[in-house]
């Protein structure tokens, strides 16, 4: 599959990592997505942050529990499809109660070209809620910093699982080429 990458990341993407760092986040663990590219790139250049690619998203839940046991904070970045991979492992958070901050870029949500993304994308928020995760949703670029700040506050000050869903329209329409 090939898609034309966005020429320049929207500015909300550049605001994510500084907000996380203001909460003393030291571990950024992720399965990559275009919407997270700026934060991942910035984390890789930052000596104060462990940037870690995962093979599947639920690894991040275990990793962040381990980091919390060790006394440090992190955040998990993924695409909406990854939420489906996480469901059973979310029991770790429910039972242990540790800060689990997830930033989820949406697919199957708005102007989706690939219908295979739609089933999980449409079920993402309900699935998170079923497993006890607090969710909020950003569809306007200006809402992103505010909501990430709010979700991080509730995760780190309340040992909660929180997820910010970053609507597909924020990332923009993928331009598919044959």
């Amino acid at each position, binding site marked *: 599959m090939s898609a034309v990458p966005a020429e320049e990341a929207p500015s909300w993407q550049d605001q994510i990592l500084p907000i996380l760092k203001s909460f003393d986040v030291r*571990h950024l663990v992720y399965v990559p997505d275009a919407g997270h590219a700026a934060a991942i790139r910035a984390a890789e250049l930052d000596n104060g942050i462990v940037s*870690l*690619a995962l093979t599947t998203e639920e690894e991040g839940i275990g990793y962040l529990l*381990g980091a*919390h046991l060790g*006394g440090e904070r992190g955040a998990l970045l993924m695409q909406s499809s990854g939420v489906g991979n996480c469901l*059973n492992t979310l029991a770790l958070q429910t039972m242990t*109660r540790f800060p689990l901050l997830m930033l989820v870029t949406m697919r199957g949500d708005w102007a989706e070209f690939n219908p295979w993304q739609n089933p999980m994308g449409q079920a993402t928020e309900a699935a998170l809620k079923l497993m006890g995760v607090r969710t909020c949703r950003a569809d306007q670029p200006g809402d992103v910093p505010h909501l990430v700040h709010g979700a991080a506050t509730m995760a780190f000050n309340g040992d909660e699982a929180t997820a910010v869903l970053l609507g597909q329209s924020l990332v923009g329409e993928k331009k598919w080429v044959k």
Partner: protein
Amino acid sequence: MGKQLLDRRAASAALLQDRGDLLVVTGLGSPSYDAMAAGDNDLNYYLWAAMGSAATVGFGLAMTQRDKPVLVLTGDGEMLMGLGALASIGQKLPPNLTIAVLDNGHYGETGMQKSHTGNGLELARFAEAANFPWTRVIEDMAGVAELRDRIHAKEGTSFAALKIAADELPRALPPRDAVHVKNRFRAALGHSTI
């Protein structure tokens, strides 16, 4: 000479002997009972579910407590569910992390159905493929003693498959209150609750 498989409790107790500042994460089922049987400890974190997560919890712990040895003690079935974790660990290779798999080739918690390792797969080769600098298949107590020293040396990410007998031993149940276990673990490291 017939091959004598290791006793899981004797092997676990030997690994946890004179543990000092060792941090331990156990995988669901028998490895949690084995660690408990060797003696409950504030620096044990026992998993009761989230199958496949033991290695990743130990990984996150090893990346934050870099001056302490971290041992993941789990079973073959639990490790098989999280094989991708070996690839993720392989990118960072914290030298203080050891994964020890108590490998009896069976799913002990669900009726002793044969697992993939029981059908001939060798987990240590996955760890080797993931660039772990030290991997072993351990079949005797001398090998267990070597592994115990390796854990405390913190000289490179280590992986060992311990070939144990498929015995069903009396259960030694660790606490199931994960919040309690988390809080005492963190307190032992000097961290507060919320």
